[in-house]
């Protein structure tokens, strides 16, 4: 049975509801309607009273999830779009992120963020927010790039006793398909080498993994073997695996879809520079979207985010150094 990235997310929520009575789902239009993207399709019928439509109140939605977690529940929240989580930002970073540290009370909530750009979506339905949340202590940030990871990492997130920001990429929802679900993969916090190589490493996560793989294909035609590492979670960040890769290739490019000021790619470059300077044959590079809001028109949108073309160009630059 083949399934899409989106179906994997639905299946994982089914599994979580089915196996853990403490799990419930909360979000706008997720009940009978099945969610704006249909990630909860049919679940309210199968689990009556546990898949609940919320008012349009992101701040209160996160607060309610935190309260429920204090009482032993393990809620999964759906934000209709990642972009609207900014309205719940205070509760996420100041309440969820600090709870355990201040009180020794765990906060096992999972907040699903339908993230990233798709053509024609514009500045408020396209954002990638992993960097902004990763900046705050106390939050785990996962960014699955494959169907298997979407499934297993969502279940792992629910099992984790800490708040997880689950960044699922909308561009992968329907595009990405697997023939069947694989077995449980690596744990949260472990990166995966998706494609081994010798000449340079591309570090990516979420939808950018697939752009990076295509860039690696292109450069293979020129005889370069590009290693592609999928971070899988950006916090914790698996520095170990990155260092191993650098030791093999000596060159690194980190690609992320979020804005270029700071963030995940900057963190990767900072760590590599500090810890593996002696292994580098070229200055580490990073590639992000442009430093403007995300444009609506596809002509602009395609030029705003990293693509196979710009990744390939950056890699050529890196290889020439």
């Amino acid at each position, binding site marked *: 049975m083949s399934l899409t990235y989106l179906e994997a997310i639905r299946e994982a929520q089914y599994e979580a509801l089915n196996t853990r009575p403490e799990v419930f789902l909360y979000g*706008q*239009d997720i*009940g*009978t*309607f099945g969610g*704006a993207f249909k990630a909860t399709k049919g679940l309210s019928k199968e689990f009556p009273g546990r898949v609940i*439509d*919320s*008012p*349009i*109140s*992101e*701040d*209160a939605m996160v607060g309610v999830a935190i309260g429920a977690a204090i009482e032993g529940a393990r809620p999964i929240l759906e934000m209709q*779009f990642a*972009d*609207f989580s*900014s*309205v719940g930002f205070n509760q996420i970073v100041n309440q969820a992120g600090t709870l355990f540290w201040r009180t020794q009370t765990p906060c096992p909530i999972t907040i699903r963020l339908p993230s990233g750009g798709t*053509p*024609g*979506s*514009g*500045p*408020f*339905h396209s954002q990638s927010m992993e960097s902004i949340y990763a900046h705050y202590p106390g939050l785990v940030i996962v960014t699955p790039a494959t169907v298997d990871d979407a499934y297993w990492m969502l279940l792992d997130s629910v099992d984790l006793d800490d708040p997880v920001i689950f960044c699922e990429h909308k561009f992968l929802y329907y595009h990405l398909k697997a023939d069947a679900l694989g077995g449980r993969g690596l744990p949260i916090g472990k990166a995966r080498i998706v494609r081994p190589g010798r000449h340079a490493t591309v570090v990516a996560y979420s939808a950018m993994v697939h752009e990076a793989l295509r860039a690696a294909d292109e450069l293979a035609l020129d005889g370069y073997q590009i290693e592609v590492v999928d971070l899988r979670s950006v916090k914790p960040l698996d520095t170990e695996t990155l260092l191993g890769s650098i030791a093999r290739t000596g060159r690194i490019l980190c690609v992320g879809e979020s804005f*270029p*000021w700071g963030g995940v790619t900057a963190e990767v470059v900072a760590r590599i520079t500090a810890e593996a300077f002696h292994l580098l044959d070229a200055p580490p*590079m*990073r*590639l*992000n979207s*442009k*430093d*403007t*809001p995300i*444009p*609506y*028109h*596809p*002509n*602009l949108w*395609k*030029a*705003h985010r990293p693509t196979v073309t*710009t990744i390939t160009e*950056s890699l050529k*630059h890196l290889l020439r150094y």
Partner: protein
Amino acid sequence: MTTLEVADADWTPEFGRKYMAAFQVMQRARLMENKIGALYRSGGQVVGGVYLGRGQEAFSGGLGVQLQKGKDIYAPLIRDQAGRVAFGEEELDFFRTYLGAAPGPMRGRDGNIHRGRPKEGLLAMISHLGSMVSVVAGCLLARRMAGRLGDAVGATSIGDGGTSTGAFHEALNLAAVEKLPLIVSVANNQFAYSTPNDRQFACETLVDRAKGYGVRGWSVDATDLAQCLKTFEAAVAEARAGGGPQLVEGCLLRLSGHGEHDDAAYVPDAIRHSRLGQDCLLRAEKQIVARGLASESEIEQWAARVQKEIDAVVVQVAREPRPDPYRERWEAFSVRGMVEGFAE
């Protein structure tokens, strides 16, 4: 809470003229939206989604015709095409934005309903619901501080769902404290996307909240243009006269999906066939004919004329250039030189 009934005595020649003007606004909005809906379904031209205000024209336009561009501030929301037409937004802005033409006010950077011309008092909504109310309040506050508010008002609208945001609450409370001339129209169309009102709020009517905020509340049957006109005229006049914020709730039904991608199968037939589900445009048309203000064939002629204009605009916009990433100024700052280079 005030509900104004419209009696025969209200139908003065003056009121009839206003009614006809508002009807023409509604008709134009409906035809523009029908066109964009058709273009969306035929594919290829519209960039992104399409969000219509079908069924909400009387309520939206009824407010819009009370406002004066150049003097008042208006922050339309998702279903306010009629209000936009009334306020004087050009058809070109609508089609250029939906079709992503470079010469439009948003230049392909933002789309569909997220358009506006803030310098002309027409604010450009962000998606985050509830966020525009305080911005309108800020415009009014600044004008008052600068001593140039005069009897201008600011108006914005929101859906039943948007009233559940903290932003809505904070802004209305703030505006009440400042006693600002703000009109907030709440288009209670019974659903927020798929979510029915009983999952959205527990008060009997949304206008009940006016008392809690300490503002004047009004309630209208939003499928009835006459009542919308009479109520908004009174509410806007009160705000202009220094009566502070006005909360106007209109009850109706969205006669389209949330967006054109949505078939709204979750709306029960019982509601569709109730009074709420009446089409305000058809109701107004019947009223006009019944009162002898115009004949059916005159109404059809107006529609045909507007349709021609719309088709011509679409032909023009289709030929216009689309944004070019190589000529785009990739800067989010207004001040030159603030942009940093990011090494790639």
